[in-house]
């Protein structure tokens, strides 16, 4: 592989790579605002300027400038090398590039940063980006000087609604055009553009249009500063209080890798941010997915109940045991859920096939929905493939509805509340549901046991491409909820069986045999340090 040298460090690159991309791949960060690994390079922020040393014997590309001599107070003509944007110059074999080590580059970064802050408002105390803002980070790393301009800064529109989700602040904007390029290149809807020039620049929405579609949140995410904010997260939390868990979006079968940001003080999730995984979601997530963090709190089942009335866990288990006593196994059905982790489904399958010995295994989930060719999958369940791998012949819920109507099934143990289609007929069966969220199956159930949501326990999910991905625990369990596999174990004990699992690692050890772990999963393909 050809290589070049950056500050003396050897960086390998693939032909066609720019300097910044090759460095990024090696985990070496060249400071930048406008460059984004998933977007084209406009080279307009000038933060990534580097000095490229001339080839031996070649004439250096340099500029004639006037430099102030501090001693004499006079300007004298000198030459300085012409700096090049690292995001635009293709790497060449044997090239020698200076970044941090070149005083010219250091000066250029300082000056670019000073220009960017020239008209920036004093907004840090009220800005949602504060604490994760590139302007703040780079000031400390590359500028470290105070304001020299005495004039009133240029004022621009603030709080402009770009659509139903995004608010724009012109004064904070550094005109990196990432949002414009994202809408153009990734969302394929070039609805944003830039108007005016110089310090009157601002981002505008095309006349007569709104910023809308399924990828508006991404414009906020690619924004390196606080110019674009989402209405959802605006003024909700200060980012330095948030902790981050590596999670997997549960919105559809794509299984986008995400950071789930939560505040441990209130045990509350605040937002999703995409987590780089080039094999799944690259750098992006859709709006519906970004908002699905709310399901950690909304529509939750947190307390056990019997016929709709709250009960303790022990009472609910007792009731379940009473329901199932003396029932012949062939009229018992078990419903797995494509919305729950492999571990949860494994536990229920174990209960069905090994302990109960029933062959009536069904699978529930959310009905299909919108799809596109960017990220969104029509299957709205996060683990359909995983359930298929566990129980290849699992029947759909519609089959269960039929079987209940025929009285072939009288008792049901179900995982998850959601089920597609008309399920009213299931009311004829006695149902025990273990669920994190309310749905048709919790409403019809005699006994409901609360399960933790994906945010409250670690779990494995298999996406539509068959990749096993791990979602870490973020929140503490809410109410009396416990991981579904644990509830299944307790239910099995209450029914008089001895479950073979009491810890997550017991299940994980079994799972290795049923479906081969995919090395390209979330953790294996984690982004290099310092990536976006």
């Amino acid at each position, binding site marked *: 592989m050809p290589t070049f040298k950056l500050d003396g460090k050897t960086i390998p690159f693939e032909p066609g790579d720019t300097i910044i991309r090759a460095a990024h791949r090696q985990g070496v960060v060249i400071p930048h605002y406008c460059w984004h690994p998933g977007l084209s390079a406009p080279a307009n922020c000038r933060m990534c300027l580097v000095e490229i040393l001339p080839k031996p014997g070649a004439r250096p590309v340099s500029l004639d400038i006037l430099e102030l001599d501090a001693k004499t107070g006079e300007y004298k003509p000198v030459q300085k090398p012409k700096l090049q944007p690292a995001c635009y110059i293709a790497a060449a074999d044997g090239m020698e590039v200076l970044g941090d080590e070149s005083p010219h580059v250091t000066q250029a970064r300082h000056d670019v940063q000073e220009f960017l802050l020239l008209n920036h408002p*004093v907004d840090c105390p009220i800005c949602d980006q504060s604490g994760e803002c590139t302007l703040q980070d780079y000031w400390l790393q590359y500028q470290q000087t105070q304001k020299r301009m005495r004039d009133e800064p240029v004022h621009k529109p603030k709080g402009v609604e770009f659509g139903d989700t995004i608010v724009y602040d012109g004064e904070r904007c550094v005109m990196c055009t990432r949002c414009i390029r994202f809408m153009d290149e990734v969302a394929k809807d070039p609805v944003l553009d830039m108007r005016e020039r110089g310090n009157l620049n601002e981002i505008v929405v095309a006349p007569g249009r709104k910023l809308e579609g399924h990828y508006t949140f991404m414009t906020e995410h690619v924004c390196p500063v606080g110019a674009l904010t989402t209405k959802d997260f605006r003024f909700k939390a200060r980012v330095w209080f948030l902790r981050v868990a590596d999670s997997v979006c549960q919105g559809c079968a794509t299984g986008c890798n995400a950071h789930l940001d939560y505040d441990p003080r209130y045990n509350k999730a605040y937002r999703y941010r995409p987590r780089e995984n080039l094999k799944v979601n690259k750098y992006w997530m859709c709006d519906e997915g970004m908002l699905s963090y709310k399901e950690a709190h909304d529509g939750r089942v947190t307390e056990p109940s019997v016929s709709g009335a709250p009960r303790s866990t022990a009472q609910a288990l007792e009731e379940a045991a009473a329901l199932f006593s003396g029932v012949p196994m062939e009229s018992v059905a078990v419903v797995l859920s494509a919305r729950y982790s492999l571990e949860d489904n494994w536990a229920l399958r174990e209960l069905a096939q090994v302990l109960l010995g029933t062959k009536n295994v069904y699978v529930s989930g959310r009905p299909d929905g919108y799809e596109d060719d960017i990220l969104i999958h029509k299957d709205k369940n996060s683990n359909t493939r995983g359930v298929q791998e566990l129980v290849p012949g699992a029947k759909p819920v519609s089959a269960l509805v039929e079987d209940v109507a025929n009285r072939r099934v009288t008792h049901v143990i179900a995982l998850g509340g959601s089920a597609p289609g008309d399920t009213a007929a299931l009311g004829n069966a006695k149902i025990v549901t273990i669920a994190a969220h309310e749905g048709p199956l919790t409403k019809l159930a005699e006994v409901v046991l609360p399960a933790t949501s994906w945010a409250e326990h670690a779990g494995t999910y298999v996406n539509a491409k068959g990749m096993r991905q791990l979602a870490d625990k973020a929140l503490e369990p809410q109410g009396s909820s416990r991981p579904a596999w644990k509830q299944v174990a307790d239910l099995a004990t209450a029914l008089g069986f001895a479950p073979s699992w009491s810890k997550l690692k017991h299940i994980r050890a079994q799972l290795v045999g049923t479906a081969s772990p995919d090395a390209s999963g979330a953790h294996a393909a984690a982004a290099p340090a310092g990536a976006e």
Partner: protein
Amino acid sequence: MEPLDIELDEGELELPAEPMHLNMGPSHPAMHGTVRMVLELSGETIVKCDVQVGYLHRGFEKMCERGTWAQVFPYVDRLNYVSPMLNNVGYALAVEKLCGISVPERCQWYRMALGELARISDHLTCDGAMAMELGAFTPFLWFVKAREMVWDILEEETGARLTHSFGRIGGMAEPPTKDFKKLCAAALPRILEIVEEGERMLLKNRIFLDRLENVGSISGADAIALGWTGPCLRATGVAYDIRKSHPYLKYDEVDFEVPVGTKGDTLDRFLVRLGEIRQSKRIIEQCIERMPDKGPVNCDDPRVVLPKKGDVYTTIEATIQHFKLIMEGAKIPAGECYSYTEGGNGELGYYLVSDGSGTPYRVRIRPPCFQITGGASKLLEGRMLSDIVPTFGSLNMIGGECDH
């Protein structure tokens, strides 16, 4: 109580007896806060003395490792709480050593002057309290009156009498007030007058002298072996003063002597402290003479020093600087250092480890009186019960810095 007037032979007294155990402290007026001595007594003679510390343990090192580097200052205020300024300056110097920065000259003189004021207050408290515990209440009141004068100056400068939290990484919280020099010049002769008055009263008192002289003696070699530093070591005749041996700030540019004792007994410790008050006065006088009236107090390193408040409210650069320093803390370069200064009781050392983040990875504090308290039982075994009071008082054990 009625005296026992039973006629007893000498022989009858020698009944088989077990040593008596007596707990002195942790709540005892002469136990300076909270330290406990488990004594084994034979009559009034101490056979064994077990000094137990830890009653004021707050885990301050761990507390220091939770916040930012700057948030450590209030904690070090509460180490030796009779001379907090010395702890502040010592910590600031340690972090500055880690960063490789030095403060402007004006600040160095200012830190010295404030530190020596704190030393005067420390020694006045120790000597005054010791005299009081032996029944000499008047000198105590006088010494405390003199200490009030020191505290008035410190209050004028820092806004707080005791817990100043005045040190900063790369400088001080505020520049000297414009009256600082005048206040010092006016107060120092008065303080010395009071000290001399108290001294005259005590050092001509036979009872006082008898209770101090040849009590709690220790040799220089033993003191060094125990790790003693400060006035307690110097009382044994070892002239080890960090300000002279390893000068920091501007101590190598000022004239002062290191008072030493000869016998290492309680009286020597008492006298060494009084001598040091005089030397501190000399140092302060030189500081205020040489401290420039104008010029920066804080260094101009934006990585550690807060910007001006006015700029924070009006310019984005200063807002960012403020935000970074307050919310994330000054990023101290990764590394470790040991920095030591002469505290009120001796070598106050900070061993700091930085992982390059805004929070200290490790703050290890070497408080001088931990070692000194460790040697207390050596001084007391074989002595009388009543010797504990002056001897322990002269060691100046401060629970705040000792217990960790």
